[in-house]
């Protein structure tokens, strides 16, 4: 386009800026969740996640260590020394401090505050304090200090530890993670095998009713699986499978088949006719042609469908809820557990964000690793 007379280069900048804005808008929510999953509960509830990326200024009230136990006597002057951050946790670079809640920024770090009658107090930038005075002054309750500190961005892996390794039954996602994996892998592999043979027959074998069958499959492509819930659950209970993995695998296989057949058939039809006819002339049977020629050549289409089916089964909630999860709760999958967490731990964002990210991580990896095949599959799969 740029080489065309009449197109303006000033438009280029507008395009760049618009794209940046659009991309930012699109990834912003996800980044929020990712950042939140690395923050502690206190951090999340005290400031927005976007604040976590910058140094944060926090005002905190401290009290020096109990003078009756910690004071030392130097030439008749009593002194309490210590470090606020070491004693109370927290940290950062102190910008200002004060001794009264009305003037929390009265002193700069290192300055010495005169508290009257020879009593002095000072705090330095690292949180070290010195409180000096006579016997009466340095006793009772410790001196208060209001400290404004700038702390660098701070992140923690604690949430992931809780979600993956410790945590109560409701929080721990390890079991759900493996359950999801158990649902996903057979539900991805089996439809591919079944569909590949059917797609070959529909693409390269001549028989009456072929066009009708393809039309039916295109039709089934859009049948909402909501219709299948009750009849199939009754069927599964009727033939003794009940709720469980087997039923879920079968259901996912059934629901994934139309797309699988459609994608694979479209791809196989496009393979060069010569190869197949030559093989036939050389005496290869259909079975041999299929396994030795068609299957290896169809790898891109197989990969496309595998990604679709993987993402779909991994992210599925409805099929798992209906066909898998029974009252014991032993077979919960991640999506279902997250929905439960939304109900029970609605305010605990550190748990929710981490749990959600654990479930999102695997599809994201698959997505970025195999995006090429996903795009190809999308382009082939949308009914033209």
């Amino acid at each position: 386009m740029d080489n065309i007379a009449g197109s303006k280069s000033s438009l280029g900048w507008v395009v760049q800026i618009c794209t940046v804005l659009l991309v930012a808008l699109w990834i912003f929510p996800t980044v929020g969740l990712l950042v939140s999953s690395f923050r502690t509960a206190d951090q999340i509830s005290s400031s927005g996640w976007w604040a976590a990326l910058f140094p944060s200024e926090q005002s905190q009230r401290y009290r020096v260590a109990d003078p009756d136990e910690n004071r030392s006597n130097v030439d008749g002057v009593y002194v309490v020394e210590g470090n606020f951050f070491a004693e109370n946790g927290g940290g950062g670079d102190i910008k200002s401090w004060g001794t009264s809640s009305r003037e929390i920024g009265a002193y700069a770090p290192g300055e010495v505050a005169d508290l009257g009658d020879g009593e002095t107090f000072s705090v330095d930038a690292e949180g070290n304090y010195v409180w000096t005075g006579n016997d009466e002054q340095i006793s009772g309750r410790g001196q208060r200090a209001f400290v404004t500190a700038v702390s660098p961005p701070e992140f923690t892996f604690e949430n992931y530890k809780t979600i993956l390794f410790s945590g109560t039954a409701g929080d721990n996602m390890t079991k759900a993670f493996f359950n999801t994996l158990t649902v996903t892998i057979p539900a991805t592999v089996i439809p591919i095998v079944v569909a590949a043979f059917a797609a070959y027959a529909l693409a390269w074998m001549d028989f009456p009713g072929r066009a009708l069958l393809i039309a039916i499959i295109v039709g089934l492509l859009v049948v909402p699986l909501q219709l299948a819930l009750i009849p199939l659950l009754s069927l599964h209970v009727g033939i003794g499978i009940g709720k469980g993995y087997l039923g879920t695998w079968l259901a996912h296989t059934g629901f994934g088949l139309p797309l699988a057949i459609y994608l694979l058939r479209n791809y196989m039809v496009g393979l060069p006719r010569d190869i197949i006819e030559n093989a036939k002339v050389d005496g290869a049977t259909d079975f041999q042609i299929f396994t030795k020629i068609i299957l290896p050549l169809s790898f891109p289409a197989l990969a496309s469908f595998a990604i679709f089916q993987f993402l779909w089964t991994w992210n599925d909630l409805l099929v798992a809820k209906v066909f898998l999860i029974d009252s014991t709760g032993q077979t919960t999958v991640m999506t279902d557990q997250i929905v439960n967490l939304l109900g029970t731990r609605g305010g605990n964002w550190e748990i929710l964000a981490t749990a959600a990210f654990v479930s999102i991580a695997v599809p994201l990896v698959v997505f970025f690793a195999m995006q090429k095949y996903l795009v190809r599959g999308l382009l082939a799969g949308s009914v033209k």
Partner: protein
Amino acid sequence: MNPALLGLITIIAGVGGCIGYFYLSNQFLDKVLFPAKGPNAGQNINRANMIRPWLFLFPALFALGLYLAYPVFETLRLSLTDRDQGGAFVGLENYQQMFSEPKFWEALSNNMLWLIVVPAAATAFGLLAAQLTDRIKWGSVAKSLIFMPMAISFVGAAVIFKLVYDTRPVDQNQIGILNAVWLQFEGGVGSFLFLKALPALILASFAGIVAYVGWIFIQPIANRNDEGGGVGFVPLRLFVGVAALYLVWLSVKSLAGLFVFNFPYGEPQTWLTIPFWNSFFLMVVLIWIQTGFAMVILSAALRGIPEETIEAAIVDGANPLQVFFKIKVPQIMGTIVVVWTTITLVVLKVFDIVFAMSNGQWETQVLANYMYDKLFRADEWGVGSASAIIIMLLVSPILIWNVYNARKEMK
């Protein structure tokens, strides 16, 4: 048994079983039933070749029949019977009961709103993203970032957007970005610019573009000598024209309302409980997910446009807007329809988002969640099945259209 072990055995049994079935049945056909030797070898080969496709197809057809075709009829039957009466035939009673429930009409009207807004917004954003990223160097990176939500589950997206919409009491720091932004507005000049003038501008330009697009569609009907893609497109053109007119009217109406409306400045909003608008906050989630899909397909279509047509238009003095709407868009119209219908299908089945974010409270119910409520919470199979049939009815025009197109393509 350990589920992982069970899974492994299932994979081996499933895959091995399938391959074994295909191999053995082929062997049986060739060696035992119709051996390709003896007196009628030729006839046998022909017979075997007539049967073989069905061997290849059988497992798939069986599964499709059992898991997709049978349930359609079974659900239809269930919607006409009453489970409490032992499955007795009750005619249309379930439908009558459903039609008398306000929650059903709420779900249906919400679904209609979803059906208009989500495909339109996702397609529009997708088209915008495709057009923007097509010409810049880091376009492919931008594309995969916009495409990324496709990999995120509806439930994951629900959590992500619950954080965006989170609300804290007024005296605390807001942790939801939407409220944090919202509280920046106090009703001064900035608020007027961003909350009244800018939306007004967007609405006005939206109305302008819609009117323009509608006019492009209607124009060929107005002057009949123009051959606008055949007679089959006249209903489509009329439909788009009417829809555009409606949208323009809607935008003008909300434009007027916008200036009268008093925003509750300074109060954190619980976005998901604001009636009517909360549905839009849920739709945003689906738009966010589906835009990437629309972008990928439309970007491929845009690349397929012959360069000469664009060059010719520019030489003839067309401005960028004209090039886009009169040269590019008409050429990818077929793809836009495909994207639109595909997203429509997703919208009709949307369940997880509503289930996880609001569960149909505060007037956000949609059909799929209503059906789930009826089937598994209220235990009313009849009414639940009836609502499933309603979803099927809404899907069927697309089903017929797809089948029609697929058949046309094969000829």
